[in-house]
């Protein structure tokens, strides 16, 4: 991470973002019900939810930081630590296991040098395991960011990675 980027992630939430969160809370009726949406909005901007931002969101939703954190940490898709530019979600559930997900994971490790839970040194990819993506008829399956991929095979997997810089 460059210093400028680091600073941005540790600066207070910008006014526009705060307004968006306030609007979510308004729309939800009960403020706390906007929690996941608000955390995801922050994550969309910064890649993850830092302690500082978590506290700010909690204040906007009239929750304690601990309360909001107990929600944030429960979910697989709210990241409380920095991630790479692209997040690979590789399905490790049973239909994909049958269809070769273990080999896909091994190939990702070979190409990128990372195990599930790790980020490449250049910050390009974070690899995370994910439960069944509901794409089992095209197993093995994965997502990169918001894009879904299935019927993975050795050549296809390499080609997909090429598309993410």
């Amino acid at each position, binding site marked *: 991470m460059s210093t400028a980027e680091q600073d941005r992630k540790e600066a207070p939430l910008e006014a526009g973002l705060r307004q968006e969160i306030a609007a979510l809370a308004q729309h939800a009726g009960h403020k706390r019900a906007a929690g996941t949406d608000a955390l995801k909005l922050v994550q969309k901007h910064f890649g993850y939810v830092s302690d500082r931002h978590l506290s700010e969101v909690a204040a906007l939703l009239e929750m304690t930081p601990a309360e909001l954190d107990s929600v944030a940490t429960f979910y697989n898709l709210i990241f409380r630590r920095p991630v790479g530019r692209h997040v690979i979600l590789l399905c490790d559930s049973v239909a994909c296991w049958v269809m070769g997900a273990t080999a896909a994971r091994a190939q990702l490790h070979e190409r990128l040098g990372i195990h599930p839970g790790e980020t490449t040194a250049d910050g390009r990819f974070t690899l995370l395991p994910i439960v069944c*993506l509901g794409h089992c*008829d095209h197993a093995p399956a994965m997502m990169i960011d918001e894009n879904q991929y299935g019927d993975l095979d050795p050549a296809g997997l390499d080609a997909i990675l090429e598309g993410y810089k």
Partner: protein
Amino acid sequence: MEKQLTAPLTAMIQPGGMPLDVTGYEHAGGYQGLRKALTMTPEAIIAEVKRSKLRGRGGGGFPTGRKWEAVPTGPGAPRQRYLVVNADEMEPCSFKDRLLLERTPHQMIEAVIISAFAIQADTAYIFVRAEYVLAIQRLTRAAAEAQSRGYLGADILGSGFTLTIHVHASGGRYICGESSALLTALEGRRPLPRSRPPRSAMSGLWGKPSVVNNVETLCNVPHIITRGADWFLGLSRCADGGTKLYGMSGRVKRPGLWELPLGTALIEILEEHAGGMQPGYECRAVLPGGGSTAFVMRDDFDVAMDFTSMRKVGSSVGTGNILALDDRRCPVGMLHNLEHFFAQESCGWCTPCRDGLPWVERILAAIEAGEGEAGDLDTLAHHVSFLHSDSTFCDLAPGAMAPLGSALKHFRAEFEQHIREKRCPWHDTAEGWA
């Protein structure tokens, strides 16, 4: 409209992948069920759904009409009520709801409006898992289109009925699919299951009467209203009504989903629809309806996939999405994969599940690695008998024990071989692409 409609849920799916927009959906007969429903009383709608013998497609098979009937109505009842669609679909090897959400979003919206009218709810939530990005986009768009045509919002089609639909994207956790945890999640709290009683129908979302139904369950409702319960009962091959979105994954020739009569035989789905196994693979057993269902062995493949018949072979319909276990994959390895999932997704609230599932996972890992010991199978069997629904707070742990219990019975020899030979007999094929 006039030709025999035998696959109502998927009839409006277009080739090419794009869903019908509101105009296309109307031309195909969409929103006719809603128009008719608004001329009926809520009680009459519930009565028709009861008569249709529609049972929940989310795994439990609870009669839908009876669930709706339990919601208090009338002058003394709480004014606020909620209808919630369970579109969390995280059960391993299940992918049926995704099809309906992505390809027939207006059918989902119409289903929600009619069902909300039946229980007189003025707010509905569709709780979708976050990874279903396309589904969330399409539902949101469909709801907006429906609103622009007067099907949603205030005074729907001049009926005086008002409804708002919220499409909610989850943060991602399997337990959110459990209906009471789902309501807790919607309230913005850490999504732990709730103790029952009270039932959600009495006290659900924010303490108000709430109904939670599966996507596929609800998508049947507009068709039941349009064509009637008798037609719906005629679709199935069993005492319960309707079709089922059966699916198949694993080493079959044509993995996929098919809308077939409820009660279609497992062997027919495997052989005719999925095209049988790929050359070089044999099907040893299946998980018939997701990770929380017990194995069905080859000898029982002629079983009809309906709620009653599946019980007779010691399993259940579950989601009706079948996974084939072929002869090149290790049953113990498969169990290890499944129990890893359940241990990881346990919400941690009650001790038997929080402590028991990781223990089960560790034993399976050891057996698979050739480090199993003589007493391990007894320890596993002990967990199977202990983690039943009276000792755990929700059905996650009992669900986790369904494949394990049946595997200990049917794959006993394979477990013992691992322990005796101190290695996995499938070692050579276990980690390959094929």
